[in-house]
């Protein structure tokens, strides 16, 4: 899901020339120059909503350096890179640009904190208290964090403040509760042996997070790793480095020992690659695009065989069955796709609708999309802000053109909105066929593709005919249909009559090329634990 600013360069460097998916060829042709957004005025915009005068966020940019070993430091090279306001494409602040040397320093700090430091040796209760204190501090600073998140990312401020920050706090409460309940097993043996398993922290965890939910991805990664007693080097997305630095600072205020959580800002091919290929990083967790996920896995394989968790792209089906309440289904399908500017790895980006209700569904979906309020994400009532950056913006528009060229019917939208920033009109395509690029590739933008189906067996086959397997939505009143679909869909999450329900305890992750492993829930702990079996002979035991 994270198409990094330099992904095309990274791909051409790391992958063989034989690699040629639609996405890759598209990405290869992207404008690499970050000033390229100025040249896209050729797109005409409609009047779905106006992007009026922008609200200036009232929040200081306090932290722009790396946080290594408990201290804010400049990049080793002294370099910085700009982080942009996606509403305008203007620079918010220059941020320290991490590279190999910064990653080395961060890993050294994390290694020392793991090998010598108090963190893994602390009682689990003490660790959990620090996580709880951190959650309290985040609550206190949630206005600042939410404003920064919206500024850097472009997501609606109400969403950041009222949904994502409380979920962030909730996730740390959740993981705090796990710290003192990580159980190994005593294990039966075939002979006179006493066998037990120790669940030990895995060591230094490298974590690479995307830009679409900067804080929530921080929580998904950092929460379980710390609950299990690991130390961390976290690389944020270059689009959204700001909130993680503030959050990590608060973590230290909450009593986190230095070196336990190190945050390095920077690009994937430099800082990210250094982390993924580091010989002294014991575990890697990555959330981002499938293409980058492949590179990450390869770098891990080429270096020290560190185990890798991948949470990658998706092309998730949202299946509306014939018994569905159409109005409810329309609203949910709209939400499933357009939420967060369509920048969700699990976005319901293939809306399969039963033929009996297809026409009504289509008409109402179009109406709903036309009503969607796009504008300054700081403004109250705005549902959709700008796309994250010029690269994503152009990619989305390119896919829209591809949809039109492949003879899908453009029902509404289809263009940029306004002349400034990266706003895209809510776009709906009908008559979408399975082999069209817009039905196959992850667009990661506000583009809904509506497809018609006749019966359950058919929709199962078509829904599963994708290289992805992240999520699926099912809308039906029928228990048999629900039971059949939930098992038949090859995806890591199936939402029935709901979508994007992301509770702390619900595991999330991909089948197929949507990734490896699960985050959240009890399953997430296994990513950050080694299992050690301990065996010793028993003499004259009362029982075995």
């Amino acid at each position: 899901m994270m198409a990094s600013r330099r992904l095309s360069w990274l791909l051409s460097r790391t992958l063989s020339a034989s690699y040629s998916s639609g996405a890759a060829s598209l990405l290869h042709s992207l404008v690499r120059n970050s000033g390229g957004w100025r040249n896209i005025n050729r797109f005409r915009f409609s009047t779905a909503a106006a992007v009026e005068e922008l609200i200036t966020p009232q929040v200081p940019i306090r932290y722009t350096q790396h946080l290594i070993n408990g201290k804010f430091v400049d990049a080793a090279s002294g370099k910085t890179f700009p982080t942009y306001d996606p509403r305008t494409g203007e620079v918010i602040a220059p941020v320290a640009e991490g590279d190999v040397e910064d990653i080395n320093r961060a890993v050294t700090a994390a290694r020392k904190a793991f090998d010598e430091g108090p963190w893994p040796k602390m009682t689990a209760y003490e660790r959990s208290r620090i996580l709880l204190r951190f959650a309290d501090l985040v609550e206190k600073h949630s206005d600042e964090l939410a404003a920064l998140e919206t500024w850097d990312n472009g997501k609606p401020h109400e969403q950041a403040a009222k949904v994502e920050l409380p979920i962030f706090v909730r996730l740390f409460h959740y993981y705090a509760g796990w710290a003192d309940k990580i159980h190994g097993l005593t294990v039966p043996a075939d002979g006179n042996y006493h066998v037990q398993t120790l669940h030990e922290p895995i060591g230094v965890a490298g974590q690479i997070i995307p830009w679409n939910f900067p804080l929530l991805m921080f929580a998904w990664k950092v929460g379980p790793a710390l609950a299990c007693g690991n130390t961390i080097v976290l690389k944020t997305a270059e689009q959204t480095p700001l909130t993680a630095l503030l959050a990590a600072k608060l973590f230290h205020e909450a009593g986190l020992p230095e070196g336990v959580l190190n945050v390095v800002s920077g690009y994937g091919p430099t800082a990210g690659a250094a982390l993924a290929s580091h010989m002294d990083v014991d575990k890697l967790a990555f959330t981002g695009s499938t293409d980058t996920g492949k590179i990450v896995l390869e770098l891990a394989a080429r270096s020290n065989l560190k185990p890798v968790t991948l949470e990658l792209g998706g092309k998730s089906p949202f299946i509306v069955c014939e018994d569905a309440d159409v109005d409810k289904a329309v609203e949910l399908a709209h939400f499933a796709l357009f939420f967060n500017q369509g920048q969700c790895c699990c976005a319901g980006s293939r809306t399969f609708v039963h033929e009996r209700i297809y026409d009504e569904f289509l008409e109402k979906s179009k109406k709903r999309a036309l009503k969607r309020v796009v504008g300054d994400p700081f403004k109250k009532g705005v549902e959709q802000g700008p796309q994250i950056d010029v690269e994503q913006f152009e990619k989305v528009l390119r896919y829209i053109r591809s949809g039109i060229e492949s003879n899908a019917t453009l029902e509404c939208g289809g263009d940029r909105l306004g002349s400034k920033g990266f706003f895209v009109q809510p776009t709906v395509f009908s008559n979408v066929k399975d082999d069209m690029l817009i039905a196959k590739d992850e667009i990661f933008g506000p583009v809904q593709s509506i497809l018609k189906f006749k019966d359950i067996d058919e929709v199962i086959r078509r829904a599963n005919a994708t290289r992805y397997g992240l999520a699926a939505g099912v809308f039906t009143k029928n228990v048999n249909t629900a039971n059949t679909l939930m098992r038949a869909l090859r995806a890591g999450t199936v939402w029935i009559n709901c979508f994007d329900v992301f509770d702390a305890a619900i595991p999330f992750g991909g089948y197929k090329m949507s990734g490896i492993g699960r985050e959240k829930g009890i399953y997430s702990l296994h990513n950050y634990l080694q299992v050690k079996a301990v065996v010793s002979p028993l003499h004259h035991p009362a029982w075995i």
Partner: protein
Amino acid sequence: MAGVSDGSSFKMPSIKFTKLFINGQFVHSLSGKEFETIDPRTGDVITKISEATKEDIDEAVKAARVAFNSGPWPRMPGAERARIMTKWAELIEENVEEIAALDAIDAGKLYHFLKGGEIPGTARTIRYYAGAADKIHGEVLKPGRELFAYTLMEPIGVVGLIIPWNFPSTMFVTKVAPALAAGCTVVLKPAEQTPLSSLFYAHLAKQAGIPDGVLNVVPGFGSIAGAAITSHMDIDKVSFTGSTDVGREVMRAAANSNLKPVSLELGGKSPIIIFDDADVDQAAQLALLGILFNKGEICVAGSRVFVQEGIYDEFEKKVVEKAKAWVVGDPFNPKVHQGPQVSKKQFEKILSYIEHGKREGATLLTGGKRVGDKGYYIEPTIFSNVKEDMLIVQDEIFGPVMVLKKFKTIEEAIKSANNTKYGLAAGIVTKSLDIANTVSRSIRAGIVWINCYFAFGDDIPYGGYKMSGFGRDCGLDSLYKFLQVKSVVTPIHNSPWL
């Protein structure tokens, strides 16, 4: 041993809560009855407490029933319960000194131990179960045909909790926290000797936001209030900690009423087995603490000490020396190791066991008498030359009385250690891995401590084998006893896998 030390400089807080706590309010008992709670240092009355009788229990159960059947508590997400419980833990931390003083004066427990250990520990326990409230997982099952089946873990309902007087605070949270985390509502009866801290916790629970009716605290006597709980037709579960004799009554009452499941954490006569390879000084210290901690008023007390013959003489000498240096006195004095027994009844019971031991022909190595002439203080007491059929070896004395016995082989030690109707705990002191492994599996007891004793933890379940009871306190096992398992099954058609 030293005489009664003076802790009179300590300023007692005033007693704020003396009434029943029902449906979020402190109320007089319907009968208007009261009972006295006594300062065991002097035998003086601390205050009068409203006494719950059957009618009050009915009121408490009604409140708990409404709170369970239609209140928010079982219906809110576990995370929400966790937040309220966490707030409760914070409030306890803000009131540690006051609660410590209540337990010290009510139970004769060491004030500084309460303040530094037991009361902060209650906040820790509440946080532990708060952290579990959002992690109650059922399972998706593997039926043998085209069925979809899963389990729901549901709160069991209104639970009756009856706790003892030896650890008024620890027992309170050990029972209440998992029940609340599970989503149950509670009617709790503290021991009539020690009602003060329970009422204080109830007050803080309300402040923290625990809804009315979810936690009801009803002080009273076992034969009246306790019996009303255990025989109540609208209580879904009883968890009891106390003596084996009363445990039997609890179970009988449950059987005679609505067949409510019970869990019982009862008496013990736990062995500590010390092998020849042990460090004698450390072993003596451990064994001494094993019997004298909390005046011997602890169900897992290491009241039978078995020492291997190679080190027996040296051990005996050392443990007697240490017992003589043990300081008995006012529990508010920080230099004191041991306060008074909780009540006159217990005090007299212990002294009569000591007399019985002497009559039976055991050798009294040290102690054996009361300390001073006021209050319920008893000298640390050690008997040797005991036979396994002696009453002081068989019965739970619940006081500072150790019986010491020599053994030759591992097999003999195991046999002797298991020669009891109880099975609550055991201690092993050895450097040998093989001995540790063999003995830990051979002892029929719910917790075995190797080279340590009283090593409790929120995540470590404990409970009884044999007549020490059934069910476990602490750990996630304790949470499960407040949950019902419901299996949900439905046919599936054309599933791609089974």
